[in-house]
């Protein structure tokens, strides 16, 4: 079976790849493009470790075929920092130690960034519901939620 040729934009860069029809976007990102910041947790859309945005919409890359990416704009964790300058969420997660093993962290950062772009002043309940699809087996979530709330407050003050 011939592979499918896909042209897409990933983190602002025009990108082409070949993929099998069965390959998920997650497979493509990790195995074809070497963008291994996006993690595979469950592979069934339950854990959120593979979160990316597609045309600005937060999705699980394990629940999308690579072939569907044709003409779309995809943002992964690799697109979050600007060069060496970390995104405020990334800085805050380090400062507040809002991670332990780190497997869930890229997905949580991508998801949290997507929330703050839509809602710069979320309540704690809104943060918890927005991140309900991002599982973390280490932290107990509290530090993550506090880091997101704190970043949101910092970003509001800075703007």
């Amino acid at each position, binding site marked *: *079976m011939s592979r*499918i040729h896909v042209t897409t934009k990933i983190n602002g860069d025009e990108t082409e790849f070949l993929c*099998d*029809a*069965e390959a*998920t976007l997650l497979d493509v990102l990790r195995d074809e493009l070497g963008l291994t910041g996006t993690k595979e947790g469950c*592979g*069934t*859309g*339950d854990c*959120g470790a593979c*979160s990316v945005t*597609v045309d600005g*919409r*937060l*999705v*699980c890359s*394990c*629940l*999308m*075929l690579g*072939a*569907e990416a*044709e003409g779309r704009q995809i943002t992964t964790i690799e697109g979050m920092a600007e060069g060496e300058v970390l995104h405020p969420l990334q800085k805050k997660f380090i400062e507040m130690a809002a991670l332990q093993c780190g497997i869930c962290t890229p997905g949580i950062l991508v*998801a949290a960034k*997507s*929330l703050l772009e839509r809602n710069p002043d979320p309540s704690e309940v809104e943060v918890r*519901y*927005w*991140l*309900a*699809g*991002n599982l973390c087996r280490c932290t107990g979530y509290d530090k993550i939620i506090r880091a997101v709330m704190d970043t949101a407050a910092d970003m509001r003050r800075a703007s």
Partner: protein
Amino acid sequence: MRFESPRSVEEAVTALAGQTGAHVLAGGTDLLVRLRAEMVEPELVVDIKRIPGLREIVAEDGGWRIGAAVSGAELGEHEGLRRDWPGVVEAAELIGSTQVQGRATLAGNLCNASPAADSVPAMVAAGAVARIVGPQGTRDLPVIDVPQGPGKTALERGEFIASILLPARGSRSSDAYLRFIPRTEMDIAVVGCGVSLSLDEEGRVSAARVVLGAVGPKVMLVEAAAEAIKRRVLDEAALNDLAAACSRAATPIDDKRGTVDFRRHVAGVLARRAAVIAEARAKGEQA
């Protein structure tokens, strides 16, 4: 497996009709899980998201036609839909996480044909109609007639749902959907209940549709429950009769998530709570 993303309904129908076991891909939140588990191994997957109109919500005869590839997140961002059919929108928004909301569709929830699908009781309460396209042309089928049992639909080979119509919302009318899950988020309904009702000028129920999910092999329109509240103000006695009718109608299974008795009881509790919310919304109150 082959992958096609046709640019027209005709192309999609031709592709689906021409291949045994071809699968339609819209949001993919059920299909990709089944692909990974090798529960399905299709020769062909047809992505319908690039067919013009399938990602749009358009006004039609006072109601709303929702393309089959419109995501839950897009439903929740649509002011007109939220105003006219808040129960359908809240049901759709209960499905999965933010990430799943970014892709999952009403038509997919319907075609997955799970008895516990959250959006389906709400759509049935709304009197929603699916527009089905296929090799024989286009046909309209009430949403209640689409599921035929767990995992089974009334769709024939080559057919798929192109859109779902939520009809015009009358005055002094609204809807609500509630489900019971043992957690606060990210779970499958143990019981779900959609209620859509209209009130007359005295505040009595003039029309109602009461629908249960997850308490039978498919979604259940409980006509006895609607009859129990018609021409009545929703006082305690009326709500008790509504709840009793729903508990009687439910035919749930026993499993680790709920016993038969528990599910029957919860069916009544959810029906009365959903009716109270729908009533408040119909009166223009926040609920």
